[in-house]
């Protein structure tokens, strides 16, 4: 049986009732191969200090709850193996550029608010069809590929923590919201491109991104927000020059009668009734 590695874990603690500012607390941890940062946190909470607070849910990298700073880089605690990061010292801190509620728990609600404000849902001008759909919208696999990458966002906030503009500008939209705005604008089924473009191109919006690229470096799902943001800038410039309008996806046509199979005769008997 492999002997585990003994490491020191530094966790940033903050109790709003007792502390004026965050402080660091030290623990030791016996790490086995395969142990994730989240496993380590659970171990410390169960065996050493039950007062540590951290968010977690799915423990498999799809919910976005456990975003935190792991040795200075934002990421998900549940899909980061401790021994991949360090064999001596692990430093955990809450995601910066958000208000801090407690210990490793940031306040992500403002980010959700910004995303919601950019209308992250399909909108079309034919409202009747949208409310009471009669048919599918036509979309080719190529059209899907234009925005599919950006649908993988789990709103964990790692990109917002890594972004240098987010560090000083509290009004900046941030990589995740702008990427979601681009995802819906590029979805050929959507028709509300202009409204979202106006929101995104406002002051403290998309033009405060200067391609430091850290958002894409840290994204745990490979969403590549930096790419989405630059592609959206291209769309905005094209719109400024009156170019690049695209047609909205149309409804599929109902197949005409000639495609129906000939009527199948009823079975001579049925089991049961």
């Amino acid at each position: 049986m492999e002997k585990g590695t003994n490491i020191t874990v530094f966790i940033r603690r903050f109790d709003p009732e007792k502390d004026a500012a965050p402080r660091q607390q030290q623990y030791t941890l016996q790490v086995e191969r395969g142990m994730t940062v989240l496993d380590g946190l659970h171990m410390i909470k169960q065996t050493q200090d039950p007062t540590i607070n951290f968010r977690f849910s799915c423990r498999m990298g799809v919910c976005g709850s456990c975003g935190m700073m792991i040795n200075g880089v934002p990421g998900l605690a549940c899909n980061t193996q401790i021994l991949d990061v360090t064999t001596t010292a692990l430093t955990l801190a809450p995601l910066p550029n958000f208000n801090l509620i407690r210990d490793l728990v940031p306040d992500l609600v403002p980010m959700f608010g910004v995303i919601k404000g950019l209308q992250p849902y399909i909108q079309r001008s034919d409202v009747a069809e949208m409310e009471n759909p009669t048919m599918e919208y036509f979309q080719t696999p190529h059209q899907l590929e234009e925005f599919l990458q950006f649908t993988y966002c789990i709103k964990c906030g790692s990109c917002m923590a890594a972004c240098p503009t987010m560090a000083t500008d509290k009004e900046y939209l941030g990589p995740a919201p702008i990427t979601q705005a681009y995802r819906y604008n590029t979805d050929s089924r959507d028709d509300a491109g202009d409204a979202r473009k106006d929101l995104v191109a406002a002051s403290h919006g998309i033009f405060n991104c200067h391609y430091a690229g850290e958002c894409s470096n840290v994204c745990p799902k490979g969403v590549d927000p930096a790419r989405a943001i630059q592609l959206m800038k291209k769309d905005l410039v094209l719109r400024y020059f009156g170019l690049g309008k695209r047609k909205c996806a149309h409804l599929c046509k109902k197949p005409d009668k000639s495609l129906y199979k000939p009527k199948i005769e009823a079975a001579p008997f049925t089991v049961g009734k």
Partner: protein
Amino acid sequence: MANKQYDNHLGIFGWLGGGRWGVERYLYILHRVTGLGILLFFLIHIFASSMRMYGPETWTAAMAILKNPIFKLGEFFVFVAFAFHAVNGIRLILIELGLAVGKAEEPIYPYKSSLNNQRPLMVIAMVVVAILIIAGGYNTFFGSH
């Protein structure tokens, strides 16, 4: 919620990063620093160059002041800043107009991003900057000034 939250924004230190960031982050910082440096120089340059309208005597007197080695060194730094800012600026224009970031593709682990797409461009840009700095340095320190 009665408890007060703690403002965990990094502030200007967040522009500088923590030493574990990618190259592009540092290029962004340098681009800002060189931009501000060039702007400061430029505002002074407008007034200095305007001395020409007062005629040859005033002009030659002004240039004599600027022959001081400290100004020559400063001029070299401005040239270096301009070379970096211009070439990195070309790279940023290509990126920010969506021409060097590649197309959206389904993420398959290990993830590649637009940073991989623009890396060759970044390397070429930095090589061009190095060449320009050497050429400018040769001209400033060994050329006929």
